[in-house]
């Protein structure tokens, strides 16, 4: 039976890893969409789009792995959470449709109408981000479960807390987008991205603070997890690390070191994500269903583990290669104007 417990924990980490890679990779390209209205210049927009056009599809595939992997490894959790998050999920899917097709459509329409797909890209990105953040908040606050099914209504997810997490994620993705532009562009576009990064960093810190303060009020278990002795020895390094990364991020923005802000922002995300993990473990549906209760049988999880062990390193390898092929600063295309 211990083997069974181990494999479920392994799978919890795999799903968490997939979702985190998704946040890392799609976060910045959704963030670009959120920032799009602030860059009305057509040349800037072309550069922004082209900085992610070769990789966005791969970025979103991690979302499919997160969802598909959860259905396979933790079918009960998938079956409970998806109906509980019904409206945010549908909104996210619709947002992803609009922004996804915009990558090609905006080049295929006539000049005068191009803005329509720019609006779709920006609106779709914002909608998908808010929906993801709201879903996160709704999971943290817990859902009503009876037997093996969700037993709440289709608006239960809507609370001040979930709105807060929705906005927080939008701020965070926008920070990733702005620092990505710092990394990938030059000239006035980069300078503007620097200014935005400053503002968004402070907004993000505010958001992290607000969510951190609000979370313990959701369930007493979260408070105990973070503040009771001896847990606090293990949890205290998280806020300390956040402070350290923030200091480094501020310095890299001040010194205009193009390569650093994006990766330091990702570190900030990683720490926030670790904080979420600390709060949730070992529940996959907080306070209702643990990873062991939700796990599919070992036969299913082991079968997939072979695939993950062999294929994920391979996937990370060729994905890195694709980023490498399109490395460096993106320049405006000469043939367009």
């Amino acid at each position, binding site marked *: 039976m211990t083997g069974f417990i181990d494999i479920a924990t392994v799978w919890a980490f795999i799903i968490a890893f997939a979702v985190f890679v998704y946040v890392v990779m799609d976060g910045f390209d959704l963030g670009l969409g959120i920032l799009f209205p602030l860059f009305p210049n057509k040349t800037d927009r072309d550069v922004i789009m082209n900085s992610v056009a070769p990789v966005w599809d791969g970025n979103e595939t991690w979302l499919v792995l997160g969802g598909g992997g959860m259905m*396979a490894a933790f*079918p009960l959790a998938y079956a409970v959470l998806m*109906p509980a998050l019904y409206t945010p999920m549908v909104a996210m899917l619709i947002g992803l449709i609009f922004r996804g097709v915009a990558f090609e459509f905006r080049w295929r329409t006539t000049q005068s109408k191009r803005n329509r797909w720019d609006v779709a890209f920006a609106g779709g990105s914002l909608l998908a981000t808010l929906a993801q953040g709201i879903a996160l908040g709704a999971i943290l606050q817990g859902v009503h479960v009876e037997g093996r099914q969700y037993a709440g209504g289709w608006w239960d997810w809507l609370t001040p807390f979930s709105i807060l997490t929705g906005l927080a994620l939008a701020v965070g993705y926008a920070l990733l987008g702005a620092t990505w532009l710092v990394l990938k562009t030059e000239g006035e576009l980069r300078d503007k991205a620097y200014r935005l990064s400053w503002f968004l960093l402070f907004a993000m810190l505010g958001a992290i603070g607000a969510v951190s303060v609000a979370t313990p009020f959701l369930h007493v278990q979260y408070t105990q997890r973070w503040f009771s002795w001896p847990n606090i020895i293990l949890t205290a390094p998280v806020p300390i690390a956040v402070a350290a990364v923030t200091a480094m991020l501020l310095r890299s923005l001040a010194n205009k070191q193009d390569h650093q802000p994006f990766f330091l922002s990702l570190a900030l995300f990683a720490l926030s994500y670790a904080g979420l993990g600390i709060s949730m473990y070992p529940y996959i549906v907080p306070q209702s269903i643990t990873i062991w209760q939700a796990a599919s049988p070992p036969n299913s999880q082991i079968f997939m583990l072979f*695939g993950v062990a062999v294929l994920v390193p391979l996937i990370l390898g060729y994905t890195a290669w694709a980023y490498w092929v399109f490395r460096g600063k993106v320049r405006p295309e000469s043939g*367009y104007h």
Partner: protein
Amino acid sequence: MFEGLDAVVLARAQFAFTMSFHIVFPAFSIGLASFLAVLEALWLWTGREVFINLFNYWLKIFAVAFGMGVVSGIVMSYQFGTNWSAFSDKTGPVIGPLMAYEVLTAFFLEAGFLGVMLFGLERVGHKLHFFATLMVAIGTLISAFWILSANSWMQTPAGYAVNAEGQFVPAEWLKAIINPSFPYRLVHMVLAAYLTTALVVGAVGAFHLQRDQHLPGPRVMFSMAMWMATLVAPIQILAGDQHGLNTLEHQPVKVMAMEGHYKSHPDGAPLLLFGLPDQAAGRVKYVIEVPKLSSLILKHSLDAPLAGLDTVPRENWPPVPIIFWSFRIMVGMGLLMMGLGLLSLWARWQGTLHRSRLLHIFAMAMGPAGFIAVLAGWITTETGRQPFTVYGLLRTAESASPLAPPAVASSLIAFVIVYFAVFSTGVIYILRMMATPPHHGEQGPRGDTPARAAGITPAAGVAVRGSV
């Protein structure tokens, strides 16, 4: 509008609607990815400019179609959870891993190499670029493998056990993956994708040959497409026949619905060519039939008995009128495809392939035939599985999420509006690109001014880097 409809019916409508839109794109992009790989290989091998022009021409169309396939596919992967949570809980341990393998082996492969395929020709060199194209093409086929395995398991479940929680759990993976209907369905669907693409390519070629029969690009693509129709359409009819016999063995009720056999025929069943199935009365009205032919096709004997729906409890009947008609539409399309292939072979032999007006009009009319056949075929097999999601084991009514009807109705309305707005626009963009013939110095997806599709011809040879 939705009063009196329950959440299950709405969820089924939503799945049918989003699936019908989605399947069109992969059916096209599976074939197109292979076609692009062949074009690039021919270019690398022969060095002829016409092949790289055709490659870039179809690559732009592929980019738009593939993007629509991706976003409509993400909807499908989450819809299992949102609308069919009971199904996901019960079947997740078996079909979840199949779909996870699809993501790991296919989606990442396609997505990882798509960027290089679309924008990387000048960055990575010809050979590595061809490798990327090949990976995308192979990825589409691997994707078909896993998703059709999962689908086939729902039709002909095998290699499973049922645990204390009522979940289907894997007992023998190989039997679950290679379940009885899977090999037939895989062959039938991949051939369908190739035919669908060939018919679209052929129609575009014919359209441009109508105006100028000397255009090199359209000549080559029309010829390639017609070879495909000539060779693959008969093979597909054979594969379909084998698939049908497999269905008769494992899902006889589906075949009863396809044939319109409400009543059993102890000494030779007729083949109903046309008729109006009346589900309530349990009979087919205004029948035109060929006596004993159904028994000959299905049992290879004129007098072989065939059971009808009268041997099946009524609560297990699938909706016969839909299946009866969608099956006939699919078969009709298949026969027309074979007709086109034979006509083109005749024209080729006569030396009139590139100037036969009749052939070109026929080929243009057949442009959408593959899509129609694919949709009709899927409607036949999925509706024929009803009233079960896992055939004979899990009823559709017991598979849905515990949602209030207004929730499902609202999302259905939202998807309908968004799909029509977004995907019809995408199809218009694709048709616009198709309306211009491939030309000398054709550029890839970014080496082209966006206004080109509207008819403004860019100066050939403008040095434009890809998406840098």
